[in-house]
C-alpha cells in the first residue's frame, strides 16, 4: 500500500466570471481553508496538486495518507473561490494513482 492518498476532485463555480483558473490559485484556496479550519500547527502539511485541467475544472491531489481526512474536510468546507461562490466535489479517493482512470480520464 502507498503512503499517499490521491484525490480526484472538481471545482464548481456559481458563475463563469473567473477567467484565470490556474492551479496556483486552486492550491492557494485549499491552503487558506486548511489554515482557517486547522490552524498553523494542525493544518501544516505537504500536499501536491499533481494535475489540474482548466477546461474541465478537474484535478488530482496527492497527500500523505494520514492527512487525507483533514484535507477532505478542508476541501468540503470551501465555499468561496476568488469572491465567487464555489464548491469542491471529490469524485474518488484512492491509494494508487492508476485507480483514478475511471473518474479522471474521459474517453
Amino acid at each position, binding site marked *: 500500500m502507498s503512503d499517499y492518498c490521491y484525490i480526484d476532485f472538481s471545482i464548481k463555480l456559481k458563475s463563469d466570471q473567473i477567467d484565470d483558473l490556474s492551479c496556483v490559485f486552486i492550491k492557494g484556496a485549499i491552503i487558506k481553508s486548511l*489554515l*482557517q*479550519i*486547522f*490552524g498553523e*500547527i*494542525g*493544518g501544516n502539511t505537504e500536499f501536491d496538486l499533481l494535475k489540474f485541467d482548466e477546461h474541465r475544472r478537474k484535478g488530482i491531489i496527492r497527500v500523505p495518507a494520514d492527512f487525507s481526512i483533514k484535507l477532505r474536510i478542508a476541501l468540503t468546507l470551501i465555499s468561496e473561490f476568488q469572491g465567487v461562490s464555489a464548491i469542491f466535489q471529490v469524485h474518488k479517493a484512492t491509494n494508487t494513482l492508476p485507480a483514478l482512470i475511471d473518474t479522471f480520464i474521459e474517453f
Partner: protein
Amino acid sequence: MVRFKNRYVLLEIKSISKATVSSKELADTLRKATKKYYGDYGLASVSNLNVKLFYDKHKLAIIRVTHGPHKFITSIIPLLKTAGKELATYRILYIGATIRQCKKFIINHQNDVLRKVFSQLSTENERKNLIEDLTKSLEI
C-alpha cells in the same frame, strides 16, 4: 453512562511588569492562541475552557479544559508571549484530574518556593512577613 472528564492545568505566569491580568484576559489569550495554532476546529474543541482559580499575587492559575482537547492547550502554552497586554511567559506546573489535586500541588510547590526564598532572607521579621503573606493568599 460515560463520565465527562476534565483536566485542570496549573499555570505559572511570569512577567517583568507588575501589571495585573484578569482571568477573563487570560482565557481570551488562550482562546486566541488556540484559534491561531489549531484553527476553528481547535477553538470549538476547547469551548468549555474556563479559568477556575487565579491567584493574582503568585501569578498562578488553574484552567479547566475537556479531557482530550487539553493537549491543544498544553501544547500552545509554551508558545504564548503575552498576558493581556503585557509581555509574559507561561509555565505548566501540573496537570490534574481534579482541582483538589492541583491545590495539593500548589501547597507543595509553595513550600519549595518558601524554602528557597527563606535561605535568601536575613532577618527573622522578614521571614514572618513572608509566611503571613503566603498563608493569606492561599485562603480561598
